[in-house]
């Protein structure tokens, strides 16, 4: 019996964690739409690989999620092309490190717009299709930093905590319509986002974790895959931490 293929939208899907999530879900049999401002060698290769191996498919769609006004148009375009989305993974985010007292207002605004406002507005438009279809899964990528804080990442942490509030409230709002909303809270991962943290700091964080190492993007991708699966049908409104025990 052919199962209806489910479509998943992964934001920030061209690199790092987003790409790992997109690849994992494509390998799992989902049709994946990865969105980012720019394509990358890696996502192009991943798209080709998925096609060759009969996975996915994995599509890349270029879009700047910072352009809030264009989000409804994006969602309508995707809906027309792919039908109502089964799942949304709000992963795209950026981070500027620095002391809050001297961080330029434009950088503060950008983090709030891209990391908080954009996923909220995107979720608003995507959840409609899910509500209409009576099923859906939303996974918001938060961060352990949204819970513990980190010196030099005040605004970033604020935006990551916002994903937890969004998760809990929305879960309560649409649960009745069979839509599960959860968050994953990754610890420090080795991606472009943490490249500016020097090796010594990263090693220190790794040493202090319960497992004495850092989690990897594949671990978080696995958690997302689980939350999208039938096994997680009664899991909603919660935060799944994937940090090798840094916050244990």
């Amino acid at each position, binding site marked *: 019996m052919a199962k209806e293929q489910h479509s998943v939208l992964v934001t920030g899907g061209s690199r790092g964690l987003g790409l790992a999530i997109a690849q994992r879900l494509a390998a799992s049999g989902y049709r994946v739409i990865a969105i980012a401002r720019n394509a990358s060698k890696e996502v192009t290769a991943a798209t080709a690989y998925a096609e060759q191996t009969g996975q996915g498919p994995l599509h890349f769609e270029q879009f700047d999620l910072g352009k809030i006004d264009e989000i409804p148009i994006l969602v309508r375009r995707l809906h027309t092309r792919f039908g109502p989305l089964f799942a949304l993974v709000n992963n795209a985010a950026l981070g500027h490190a620095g002391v809050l007292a001297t961080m330029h207002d434009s950088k503060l605004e950008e983090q709030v717009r891209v990391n908080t406002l954009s996923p909220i507005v995107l979720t608003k438009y995507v959840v409609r299709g899910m*509500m*209409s279809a009576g099923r859906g899964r939303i996974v918001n990528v938060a961060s352990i930093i949204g819970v513990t804080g980190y010196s030099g990442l005040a605004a970033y942490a604020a935006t990551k905590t916002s994903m937890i509030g969004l998760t809990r409230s929305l879960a309560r*709002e649409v649960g009745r319509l069979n839509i599960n909303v959860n968050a994953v809270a990754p610890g420090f991962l080795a991606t472009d986002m943490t490249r500016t943290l020097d090796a010594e700091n990263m090693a220190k964080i790794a040493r202090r974790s319960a497992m004495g190492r850092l989690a990897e993007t594949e671990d978080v991708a696995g958690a997302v895959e689980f939350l999208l699966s039938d096994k997680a049908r009664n899991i909603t409104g919660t935060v799944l931490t994937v940090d090798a025990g840094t916050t244990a």
Partner: protein
Amino acid sequence: MGQIEQIAREHGKALAPLSDELVLVESGLDSLAFAVLVARLETNLGIDPFTAAEEAIFPTTLGEFVKVYERGLARDTGAARL
């Protein structure tokens, strides 16, 4: 109207008799059901006049709700649809 009745059935809600004067908050549909209605109308008609509006619109009666869509569809005629 068919959509409203279907949603009421799906959500197990008792629907008040439908007329232009029906006050929406007394219709038997809650805000969640209305959100589903707006989503389905968007799929069927291709527009969401509430989002397209400059400010938030709050129709009070069923008649006003229908007018919001009629105006939206009239505006949309001739405009490129995605």
